[in-house]
């Protein structure tokens, strides 16, 4: 596996994490848990955005694997 595809795999997991956090936040009854889930979802979202940029950068670096 190239670095690019590895990072893409990680990006997919992070998307999965974000979605799971979203469902949990929606299902949670306690405002405290709800807020915690939302807060963490925000952090994961930032990571996702960063990683998305990195994927674009890597695909330019490794055009032969595209």
């Amino acid at each position: 596996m190239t670095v690019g595809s590895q990072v893409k795999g990680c990006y997919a997991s992070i998307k999965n994490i974000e979605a799971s956090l979203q469902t949990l936040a929606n299902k949670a009854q306690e405002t405290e848990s709800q807020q915690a889930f939302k807060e963490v979802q925000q952090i994961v979202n930032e990571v996702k955005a960063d990683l998305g940029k990195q994927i674009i950068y890597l695909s330019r670096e490794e055009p032969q694997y595209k």
Partner: protein
Amino acid sequence: MPGWVEVILKSLTLIVVLFTLTKLLGTKQLSQMNVFEYISGVVLGGVVAIHTFDPEANIFYAILAMFIWFVVPFGVEKISLKSKAFRNFAEGKSTVFIQDGKIMEDNLKKEGYSTDDLLEKLRDKDVFLASDVEFAVLEPNGTLNVLPKRENRPLTAKDLGIKLAPQKEPQTVIMDGEVMYESLANLNLDLTWLETELEKLNVSIENVFLGQADTDGQLYVDLFDDSIAVPSPTEKPLLLATMKKAQADLELFALSTENQQSKELYQRNSKKMQDAINKIEAYLS
């Protein structure tokens, strides 16, 4: 009227009267009865017992006697709700047996407790060494309540400084294969959610003996057919594992790349993921 008909009629009447009076006297548990409730209970029972089978006895006397024995304890109860002094008199006061770790011998004697009685009561509370107790008090209803010394109290999450997610009572959403719509609504969930969750577990609703959902919307079921194994909810542990894996991956990328800028980006995000894990861990376990 033959004697036996009279007995039947009297018994039925007195059962109704006794039942009503007992209900009116309050629903305090038998173990929490105070002196008055105890006495009136005994006497009411006695009056009924005598009058049911004695054809000579006048039933109106029975009812009158029961009424008196009902009114007095009832009045006592109502007054003691209002007045603390009267309550102390009618229901008794609690007596301190151990204070600051020292046994109050005078109080023991006053309540008629021997050393053995005290030790027995303490053992009842899982205390075998009297010096482990900071404070112990004999309640009016005869139970001894014990506050152990700080170091002998059970360890709690607060002592360890562990943060725990708040948890409300779980709701029973399926009973004997029937959906409880009210409890579902309490959790802001609906039938569609329940059907999806059951489909995930691969069971049909008729086969579920008991289904409970916690506040985070995870379903736990017990089936009629005990030979089928049901997986326990995996959503939260799985999410935590995925988060940990993503964090580890980012760290690995940071180590393996030569490019300084990418390294920094991976490191920063790996740190963020670690933060996220730390924040959410309590809620996912």
